[in-house]
């Protein structure tokens, strides 16, 4: 009974609390994490460094040709840096804002692939 009333009070406060839970959910922490990961030093975007599972491979296959070509260029440039055991000059590193804007090019396609696979799995479940 006490738990029930506490749950109720929690749900009524959740609207206010969601904004208040910014201990790590804030711009500064995200920027720090982005810079710490360091993939931007090789000229890569977030979606370039995703592990190429079957879903990601299918999403890449569905990308328009110019986006596939740009991805291939960035990967090749990063491989060259890796071979030379160096990173790009600092002015060529994608910034946090640029990555937010252009670095999530694959996400929409990936979500679609995941939704399609989930639909097929749902039908197979009920088959």
């Amino acid at each position: 009974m006490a738990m029930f009333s506490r749950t109720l009070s929690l749900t009524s406060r959740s609207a206010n609390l969601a904004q208040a839970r910014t201990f790590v959910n804030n711009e500064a922490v995200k920027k720090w994490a982005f810079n710490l990961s360091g993939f931007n030093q090789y000229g890569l975007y977030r979606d370039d460094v995703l592990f190429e599972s079957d879903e990601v491979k299918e999403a890449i296959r569905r990308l328009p040709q110019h986006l596939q070509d740009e991805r291939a260029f960035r990967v090749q440039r990063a491989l060259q840096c890796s071979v030379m055991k160096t990173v790009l000059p600092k002015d060529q590193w994608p910034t946090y804002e640029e990555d937010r804007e252009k670095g999530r090019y694959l996400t929409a396609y990936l979500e679609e692939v995941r939704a399609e696979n989930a639909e097929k799995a749902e039908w197979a479940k009920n088959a």
Partner: protein
Amino acid sequence: MASRFVTSQGIRNLSAQAVAKTEHVIPKPEPLKVSTLKNGVTVATIENHGPVSSLGVVIKAGARNEVYENAGVTHMLRICAGLATKNNSAFSLTRNLQQAGTGLVCTQGREHTIYSVQATRDNTDVAAGYLTDAVSNQLFKPWEVSDNTYRLKLEVENRAPGTYAMELLHAAAFRSGLGNSLYCPSHKIGAIKPEHLQQFVSKHFTGGRTAVVGINVNHAVIAKYAELLNLESGAGPSSIASKFSSGEERRETGGDLAYVALAAPSPGATSVKEALAAMLLQRILGSGPHIKRGASQGKLAVAAAEASAGNHAVSAIGPMYSDAGLLGAMVVAEGSAAGKVVSAVAATLRSISVTDADVAAAKKNLIADVLEVMGNSASLLEDIGTQVLLAGDVIQADKIPELVNGVGLADVQAAAKKLSASKLALGATGNLSTCPHVDSL
């Protein structure tokens, strides 16, 4: 033992009496109901009390509406029927229609495209929902279109030589418009992009060019689904008038047989009397054997048999469109015999003498053929849809015998005379070593 025998007899007699009391009344089929909706879509339904409903969306868009830049787009449109829409993925459409016991079929002619489903009566609502979605909300996703290009290639490669000869005939006779092939030209396979498909759909899938036809469905229910069709409004672009030209298209492919289609112009579905006279003339000329394993009959078969003892098959063809048509013959013969057979067939086309007996027999054939079309739901759907869209109104089934019998000997003789004075167009493929050129016929 005896008592058991008597008892069972007694029960049988009782049940026989019970059956005899209820007379089986065959319900009368209801006539065609046609109405036009606010969005311009025409809805036509007919009830003939069968257990299976057929539902189709017929659109006045076909190969005729292609232009040079988008040649082959209608073929690709047919291949892409049933792919992802705004509300359903391709997988969802397929599986949900399967659950309803049906599947989507897309049929195409030179002037119309039909998307149809056939389901049992209790599943028709579900099927109608997915059908309207599949027709009006197509997305043409780039990867889906390119993934299905192999089916386009397969259909073009698998085309029968006789079909190819007919396509060549149309190209020779009408050039563009009706001359556009139902099949995608080879150089366009892989070059048709989603934008072309989307543009074609936006331009031609309009309310004024669409009819929803239902057999054994409730008119009001189907009208509600037809309102959900998300189409552009208006009548779309008007077609360029068809013009017949005498010409030939020949494709030498070698082999043993020659496939030759030759034809003269005939009036399209503009005048009922002339159209019927052309159809009767086609049957007088002969369209293959009417009896299984029998001999072909008709004037063409007789002339061909006299001309050559080699293997051959001859049939009269009479494709008819909204404003033009063709009337002629299809010849399939051994390469060496083709020349004589084609010349004999052309000579017969130029000199047909029609008697009362010919016309009477042809009338019976025509009525039987029309009723056969009406007996098959899928072809009835196509028939009603094309009549509604291309001719404006539908001829009721019970009027057909009356109309056919109203055509007189004089009308058919006039059609024969026109045929004898016309130029011919020719489409040929296969072994054309002896096939004559059209200007010598």
